[in-house]
């Protein structure tokens, strides 16, 4: 068994890499004026916060990135803005405990396997959850972004939002590709 797999590996691996590499060299990339993914998604995130109403507003709006931060310097674009005259504070959180006090939690792709843990920790609290992982809406995330054909779109789980006493504007619901009620 071991020898057989080894032989296949020896034969295939070298050739596969040769093909991929020649492809790399031949197919010089095509450049287009596209917007960096997370620069665009940061703008979406800001809009989600703007078109959602919390039961009460705090002195500063607490935005948390859960997991490995994919936004990098684009996060500054959000924190340099205000939400309903309140400053926005952003922080990157690695642990469930650290989610305490967050009003919006963006579950980064690296943490998409921990959605259930996030859900458990915010049960009953007014916290908006946002993700960009396929199937996240079904796991109970309130807003999920997806990328298809070079465009970003989003879906909304209104039932979950209501359970957490959050009100989403009709505009958000209208633009969503899909709304779970």
């Amino acid at each position, binding site marked *: 068994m071991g020898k057989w797999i080894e032989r296949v590996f*020896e034969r295939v691996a070298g050739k596969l890499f040769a093909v991929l590499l020649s492809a790399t060299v031949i197919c010089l990339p*095509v450049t287009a*004026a596209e*917007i960096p993914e997370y620069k665009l998604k940061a*703008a979406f995130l800001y809009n989600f916060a703007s078109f959602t109403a919390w039961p009460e507003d705090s002195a500063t709006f607490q935005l948390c990135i859960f997991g490995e931060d994919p936004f990098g310097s684009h996060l500054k674009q959000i924190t340099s803005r205000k939400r309903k005259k309140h400053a926005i504070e952003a922080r990157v959180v690695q642990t469930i405990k650290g989610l305490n006090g967050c009003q919006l939690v963006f579950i980064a792709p690296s943490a998409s396997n*921990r959605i259930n*843990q996030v859900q*458990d920790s915010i049960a009953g609290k007014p916290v908006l959850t946002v993700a960009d992982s396929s199937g996240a809406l079904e796991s109970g995330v309130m807003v999920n972004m997806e990328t298809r054909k070079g*465009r970003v779109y989003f879906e909304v789980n209104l039932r979950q939002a209501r359970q957490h006493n959050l009100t989403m504007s009709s505009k*958000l619901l209208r633009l969503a590709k899909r709304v779970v009620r």
Partner: protein
Amino acid sequence: MINSANKAALFCGLILSAPAIQAQVDEPEDLFALDLGQLMDMEVEIATGTKKTLSKAPAAVTLITADDLKKTGATNVIEALEGVPGVHVRYNRSFYTPFIHIRGTNTNQVMLMVNGQSLRSVISPWPQDVFWKGMSVNAVERVEIIRGPGSALYGSQASAGVVNIITKTANDIEESEAGLRVGSFDTQSVFGQYGTTLNEMRAGATYDISRTEGHNPYIVSDKSGSSDDIGLGYKNVDLRTYLAQDSWRIQADFIHNFDTESGLDGGTGFFDPITSAETRRINLGWDYSNRNLISDWKLDAKMHYQNIYSSSGDGYYYGDTKQERSNEHHLTTEVSGLYSGAADHEITLGLGHKWLKLDDVTSILNGVENTGTAAAFAEVATRNENFLYLQDVWEFSDNLEFTVGGRYDSDSDFDSVFNPRAAVVWKSSEKLTSKLLYGEAFRAPSFVELQKKRYAVLNPESSKTIELAFNYVVNRELSLSMNLFEFDSKNVIKFSGSTGTYYNGGNYGVNGVELEAQWVPRNDLRISGNVTARRPDENSERNDYEPYKDGYLRVDWEFKPAWNLDVQANWTADRRRSSSNSTSVTTGAYNGLARPDLDNNFVVDTTVRYEHSNQWEFAASVKNLLNDDARESTGKTVLLDLPLPERNVFVEMRYKF
């Protein structure tokens, strides 16, 4: 009729799913001023995340994260290194001490560090102390591996590559955890971490207490021609503590490796059932970092102290018992600044001092202390090193970056050396990054090499490396990279067995190619792998133990939420013995037998990990699943080389609080 251009496009489309040419749309100045509906009309570019910074680094860098270590079921950092392109780990005949080789070169040409501090002992040329058994993964936050020379920044030993193990510091330990691991070869570990905030201060600690009987392989013939199982058990205590506040951090570590069995004697290759060695290491460190003290400068200062005590215990030596002990101190003081005040330039300037002292050497033969320098394996000695380094990263344009730098090392034991480096990184598009790299490096002789030099002068080893590298992000799912390198070293320090002395030997070189790919077709599936091929100079200096080819494949599949299945395969191939090593030298029936080239190793490991809740986490591993008869090459006194562990299993549980 399909013309050649169309064929090429079809090829690209099939292989790479390359995007069609898209219309030029100007990026709006302020996305935040746009309406949500307008945002949905914007074209999005593929993100490469943190890989981008790695791909732009002026060196070939691989990062192993704590998450990688958990997913692959690694219990020792050494296990994870085998999967890094260009890295091959083999084992010493005695103690099965792991030897890290990079790019087919000698293990002495690798620099091994923990938190930027070399693990090297002054008595040996190896990158680690002599009885080192690797390091438990529990304390590790990440491992950075640089293939290629690093002497222009790090100094001695960083010729073929640098392995820097970064531990979890107080700020990384956000939650406390306790864990338990048991497995084959009578192995047990308890480990954990604790983090808390005291007033404004962060405090953290990690611990790992382990024991193992070892995999105790069967050796067909030792130096005396006998066959037997050898003992490779050891016990280990690893405690690390940290305190951090604002700009400073202090740490204190205690690492004790003891009851360490050698299996085969190092000097002779005879079975050694009695040696019970130990190494005790104490690290004390102070680190300071401040961005605000002087405008445009980020200042760093550090002072690190290490004490290494080693004892072979009573060991077997040509029918006698022998014990060797040593005690050494290292003190490093370093100040550096990163200046970002000049437009497009990032300038690093650093200087420091290293003090190395070997203050106790004891050799006991049959219970009687050996006096006189001739009988001792080393003499007490002190060495002082001063160093100064300067590096400028010049961002010539958005997509072109030049790096030039060098380090000057002045040493009390030999002539000063200067090691420059230069790099050009060209990001010709969002997808393709090309690099041209050059660097020189050196290795300072150890105390013992200098004390037992054959001729009047023993020079440091030196090397030059030139590399050409490409990183290509095909699309969101697939990225590829290729590195071509040529390594040349001279004045390699060699040991003459007949005279027991060291001398500068000949020159040798290796060139080769390293290919890597990562494919993430779905959120729950990640496939990565690499293959490397090397061609060493075919002369007497060739490193006999190194494979000409190796490969690695890893698959991670989150088949259910909170579950991860990892399968990895390591392939070590095409090992050729030199003529001087191809006949066994022993006594008895096995003497003079031909030693054929080693068969290829193909070791498959698999690990399932399950995060049950916020509190509980479980994992189970089967290593060497196919029970491959994997072996690592050794010298001619051991006829059939050194067997690696057969199929073995581990289970682990963790509780977070």
